[in-house]
């Protein structure tokens, strides 16, 4: 039996047909749409490598069935940079060396974007660490990750102040 849903993925609306109700958003992207930026580290919601934004909120895509997300608007790591301009979080990850092997990185970055949007971590390192603790990094790039999130948070704050003024 075929299922059909519509998803807006990185700003592009797509009608997606697939034949299996067991497909998660993670496997849909990786194996069927060949959007492989999002990573699978555990497939059971324990590592955060698969973090994406669904309607602006960060979720573990390995725990999300594609079928139950008809109509959702999704951002993955591939959709973050705009017109070859890196998102401030991406730029901050490079500048602060917020990764080593890079496997957890798409999830870290999406989680950071989500955290900044949630707005309760601010630039307090303790809160940022707490807010990013759903994303494991076995390489231990946490110091750089924390710095990157704070730096991106600051530039987001400045951008907002700029807009308001």
């Amino acid at each position, binding site marked *: 039996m075929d299922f059909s849903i519509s998803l807006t993925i990185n700003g592009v609306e797509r009608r997606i047909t697939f034949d*299996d109700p*067991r*497909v998660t958003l993670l*496997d849909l992207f*990786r*194996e069927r749409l*060949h*959007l*492989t*930026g*999002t*990573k*699978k*580290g*555990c*497939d*059971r919601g*324990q*590592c955060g*490598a698969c973090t994406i934004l669904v309607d602006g909120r960060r979720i573990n895509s390995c725990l999300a069935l594609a079928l139950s997300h008809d109509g959702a608007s999704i951002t*993955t*790591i*591939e959709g*973050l*940079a705009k017109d070859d301009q*890196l998102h401030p979080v*991406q*730029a901050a*990850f*490079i*500048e602060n*060396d917020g*990764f*080593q*092997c*890079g*496997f*957890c*990185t*798409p999830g870290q*970055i999406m989680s950071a974007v989500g955290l900044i949007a949630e707005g309760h971590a601010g630039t307090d390192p*303790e809160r*940022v*660490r*707490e807010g*990013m*603790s*759903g*994303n*494991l*990094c*076995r*390489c*231990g*790039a*946490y*110091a*750089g*990750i*924390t710095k990157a999130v704070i730096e991106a948070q600051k530039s987001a704050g400045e951008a907002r102040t700029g807009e308001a003024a």
Partner: protein
Amino acid sequence: MSDIPTLSAGSHQRHGSNIGQPLTRRDGLLKVTGGARYAADNNPDGLLHAVLAVASIARGRVTHLDVEAAKAHPGVVDVMVPGNRPALASDPDEKSNPFMFRLDLLQNDRVRYAGQPIAVVIAETFEAATEGARLLAPTYETEQARTGLEGEPFAPEKVGAGNAARAQSGDVEAELAGSARTLEAVYETPAQYHNAMEPHAVVAHWQGDRLVIDTPSQGLAMAVMRVAGLFGLTPDKILVRSPFLGGGFGSKGFLSSAQILGILAAKLVDRPVKLALTRPQMFGPVGHRAPTRQTLRIGLGQDGKLTAIDHATLTASSTFDDFFEPASDISHTLYAAPAIRTSHEAVRVDTGTPLFMRAPGEATGSIALESAIDEAAETAGLDPLEFRLKNYAEAEPISGLPFSSKALRECYEQGAARFGWADRPREPRTMRDENGLLVGWGMGTATFPALMFEAEARAVIRADGSGVMETGAHDMGQGAWTALAQIAADAIGLDLTRVTFNAGSSDLPNAGIAGGSGHTATAGMALHKAGEAVIAKLADLATEDEASPLFGADNVGVIARDGKLLRRDDESRGEAFGDILKRAGLSNIEARGKAGGDNAAREHYAMHAHGAVFAEVKIDPDLCQIRTTRLVGAFAAGRIINPRLVESQLFGGMIWGVSFALHEEGIQDKRSGRIVNGDFGEYHVPVNADVPSLEAILVHEEDQLVNLLGIKGVGEIGITGTGGAIANAIWHATGKRLRRFPIRPADLLG
């Protein structure tokens, strides 16, 4: 790799010396945009998905698999079991050298550890393969699993990477008998699982008699040879691509059974196949750090000097192969004593075969030795740093060799100053913070050998003045794409932006293995030599050419800088690379270079990196929750190629030290032999909130003996020292000596 763009060079302005600059990662752009392609990101046309079924018992036989049920599931294409597994050219149980680990490739129905592959289900989709594997519903004939360290011990001849299992200098028993004070303590470390974030994966594609595999590898050339031997292929028919590893830590040094099974599955169905391990499957067939029980006996003189160190390790290997965690060896290098003895014993248990895991031996040995040294300092009534300085090894203790360099005193000094160690009260349980938490300060010494392996590289200079440098190096996160490119660019006197650096594929010159913290030194030296060789060729062209301003300069010599060759005695006279080549009618010129340990120097010197780690912990006096709040490490590891990346490596190592002291432990059920906490929910590794404020001081150290570039390696040293520093800080906070790791809040209760 053409898909590695050089980041626009904003952070890289200086010409002439790429080495030493804190460049951001050249693969950074790919990694932050999702463009870095890891093995499982490959989706060739016609791809099928394979899922392993693994044993849920630790010892016995598979008596039945419901292959029919699995095959009947829509989408399942085939099920690979011992009966239909394609033939291999060599026996997976054959062992012709110590680094050829026995594999589980469905050679029979035997089960020798929980998590062992027992079948492979191949399907059109991942979902169908997963369900097919479940439908196999295996039944077993089960035998009692052997677990723990209580079995009959035996004495292996070799441990680790072929070190002698026993070593000694002086008469330990006599020294202990004559010591003013002695202490004996037993330390236990658990099984640990590498758990790189990227589970082992392979995409295998047979193209006629040619095999292309995408799989993470810390040793591409070895991987090719292993596959060649198993499949009866010549190495030139095999291409292994591993541009990015999602972490390795030792578990991707050798191809695992799982990866070979993916290749076999592709052969069986004659289509490309992707096989990725699930997280729980990372707790069986891909190696682990074996548990240890270490007994340390220490003798002390009246003056607070060590008289003897006796370090005995009991560890475990699998029932069918040999790898022995060389924990006692740490006592060979750090502290001077008239008598030192190290030894190892082992038992056999029903687990997968243990393997090299980040600082194999050093990490396990260090946490025990550094704890024991702290206990000895306390016994001697001395400050732990003062005690370590009093027993500082001026020459390598057992061998008696001088150190090629050893800036450990500077590490102690700079680390202690930065941490504020001088203010530490000697008595335990005397410091509290403003919230009433117990505060403790502890320290440990870090050390790791400066190893070199063999490698080759190729250097090309083109008529347009650009260069190509290549070696089949491996970037598992340490930063090879960047650090090696920096070395490569300097080797041919070009700015990094003018050099194409290729790595990560088996069709490039053999870069050896990314292990033993020796990859930057090894592959870097090969690149350096290749560069030297191509520059020498270019110089020959110029100095023999009357039309060149360098004509006749062969006696005084030339140097390469900024894309030009310059007379060594008069740098105003020189010529651009491209001009030399064009006049000679050449489009490019190339040469190869080789690296290996300089054995002559290695026979006469002991070569190690060193460091000192200082830790602060805070402990809730009622709930006993333990937090590491501050870590300062000072490390001397020879020349630093890229301080930004090195700091990250050291931090990563220190976090593994936190994990060793407080978090990770693989628990094997005594009854079933299964790992009961085989996932990230139950097998704890530090999360961001567990990681304290970290500082790593890079202590200046020059060493012309380790290798021409003076590199010692930094990938593993951070774990050593750190675990012990935290354990010692816990003692200092509470007055309790805890000798079983990881230390948990429950251990402090009561």
